């Protein structure tokens, strides 16, 4: 299928066909990362700017490695503060980047919608690497690739996403993506972490971990931002971990062959017990990281005009 999209902004916009194209392309790139010489000349001469307004190690590194394995020139710009704090408006930032003629701009930004605004202002392709609590499409795609690799298919699987849904871009992107692929998505978290009217996305919502993970094929744990305690999103880490930590006991409620995922970085013992996180029979957490490079190679390749 032809891939003629300018930007990758969110899973909400991607069609089932586009998602399948991305996953199939990513599968074909998996092998490159196992070679001794992990580099192909596909994107030689292309320039990719990784523009990160928010601290990130794994996503930024993953995009950088993905670009380098395709022989693109990758440049990282980390801005600890927003353009506003620097006194520069987003449009000025965008125009400056545009003037340097990159081919693709990968952006992470703490403000929801910032990549969407940027995409309207510049002619280059924009990849959203996470915007506020909105979307993180490459994470959802790598999650789907991981599930597909392990389970063989996605349609019909029950996927339970557990934790702070309200502040999670990973949850939103996965709800859109997995629903399009035919999975049944259920959520659980304390009511303070469930954003208003989320059930209108066509999913089941629970307030207890145990209810959500019954017969789940996939259990996806979300990272708890420790500073949310101060906002009274939850009373204490102690209480949260007692009721929402995935452990050897609660995992038994899921299907025997269930896999456990986490977008990382994990808070050991808070949302996931170390035993589960490190158990190779169910945990695919490091596999997700591995798939991330292939998915991002696929996105860079397809946006550069690559054919399937």
């Amino acid at each position, binding site marked *: 299928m032809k891939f003629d999209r300018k930007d990758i902004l969110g899973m909400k916009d991607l069609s089932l066909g586009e998602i399948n194209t991305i996953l199939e392309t990513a599968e074909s790139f998996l092998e490159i990362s196992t070679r001794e010489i992990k580099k192909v000349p596909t994107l030689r001469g292309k320039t990719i700017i990784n523009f990160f307004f928010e601290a990130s190690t794994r996503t930024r590194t993953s995009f950088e490695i993905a670009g380098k394995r395709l022989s693109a020139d990758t440049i990282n710009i980390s801005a600890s503060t927003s353009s506003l704090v620097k006194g520069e408006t*987003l449009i000025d930032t965008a125009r400056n980047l545009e003037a340097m003629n990159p081919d693709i701009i990968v952006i992470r930004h703490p403000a929801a919608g*910032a990549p969407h605004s940027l995409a309207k202002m510049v002619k280059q392709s924009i990849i959203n690497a996470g915007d*506020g*609590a909105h979307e993180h499409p490459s994470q959802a795609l790598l999650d789907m690739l991981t599930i597909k690799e392990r389970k063989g298919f996605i349609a019909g699987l029950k996927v339970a996403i557990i934790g702070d849904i309200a502040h999670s871009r990973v949850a939103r992107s996965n709800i859109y993506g997995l629903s399009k692929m035919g999975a049944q998505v259920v959520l659980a978290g304390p009511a303070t972490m469930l954003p*208003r009217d989320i059930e209108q996305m066509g999913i089941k919502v629970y307030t207890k971990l145990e209810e959500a993970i019954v017969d789940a094929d996939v259990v996806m744990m979300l990272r708890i931002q420790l500073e949310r305690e101060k906002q009274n999103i939850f009373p204490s880490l102690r209480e949260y971990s007692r009721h929402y930590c995935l452990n050897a006991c609660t995992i038994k409620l899921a299907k025997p062959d269930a896999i456990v995922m986490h977008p990382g970085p994990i808070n050991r013992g808070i949302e996931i017990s170390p035993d589960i996180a490190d158990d190779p029979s169910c945990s695919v957490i490091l596999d997700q990281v591995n798939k991330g490079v292939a998915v991002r190679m696929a996105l860079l390749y397809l946006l550069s005009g690559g054919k399937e």
Partner: protein
Amino acid sequence: MKMLLTGARVIDPAQNINDFMDVLLEDGKIAKIDADLSPSLKTKDRGKIQILKLKGKLIAPGLMDMHTHLREPGLEYKETIASGANAAVVGGFTSIACMPNTEPINDNRSITEFIKRKAAQAALAHVYPIGAISRNSAGTQLTEFWDLKDAGAVAFSDDGKPVMDAALMRRALEYAHSLSLPVISHCEDTNLSAGGQMNEGYYSTILGLRGTPSIAEEIMVARDILIAEFTRAAVHIAHVSTAGSVDLIRTAKKRGIKITAETAPHYFTLTDDALQAYSTNLKVNPPLRSAADVKAIKAGLADGTIDVIASDHAPHARTDKELEFEYAASGISGLETSLALSLRLIHEQVLTWPELISKMSLQPARILNLAKGTLKPGADGDVTVIDPERIWTVNVKSFRSSGKNSPFDGWEMQGKAILTIVDGEIKYDDRAQDKEA
């Protein structure tokens, strides 16, 4: 100097007039209003009288917008009193009241006098300053209401910095009541709305933007109703945006509490689903709400629960809006689209012509205790002539306001002010396109 407006239908809710009449202005006042004034004019006057033939048009008392932001002093890059007053007359408004959130805040008579002086120099629309409730709108200590009134303040409000302290609000209502001036309350519990970017609901959830819940407004509406009831003083609720607020105000009115309310055109025109493209011109406080809220606002306008339509004109510069949604300023430049958007309520049969005109002239004048909003002989010669058929397209580039921040850019409208007369003088004339005799 005399001016005769003839051939148009006159709508003057204060006199229950909704008929074809002539209006004669003389020396800046309304001199006469009658079915046909032409025979009564002395022949020797004929040459000296300006006769405006207005067939097919509507004559209304000069419109009043009781909720605007003129940004001067301090924020002249967004708007000045002159540019705001210019936008007012283009929008058909002969009078506007301006909120105190300038820099410095209008919390003392020198600022109030400055605003009055600048407005007099501009000599366009009448400008009525609203004084701050608390010093620097910090919510702790009352301003000198009496002094502000003497300087020309017509109401008190801390506007976008809502009075969170109920005891201070109580004292403000009591003290303002003794001066016969209203307190205008921007109802927002800032603990509940903290960080809020848009209405809390399905769309804030899928857009990943922090929501402002409807109860942030409604809890404060309920509080202010109780304070008004207890103190027997008047309170005016600014920019009502939720169905719950409409219900609370409706019930309070039935109980005889001295409460009045306004809404802004965007709250009966737009809903929160419009934010899906993250357009910062749709960012406004209170935020655009749901379709159910819009329906309730219209019902509240229709049954009189909401007394007034005011634009909440909030001009901003490009640099305030061309930002990430979270960092962009809230507000819509509304003076030049308010009337046309409100006329849609007539097309939708939510309001009749006299009801609409009343909500945009007589009612705000009554709330602010101003002898305006009527065409009674002896009243100030403030008149707005509306062409109800004129089709036009909103173009922010041609706004006279410095604030081009309108989500209505490009919208096709039906109905427009074509003549704005202030104290008997034409301040805006857009009849050029009508070539009738």
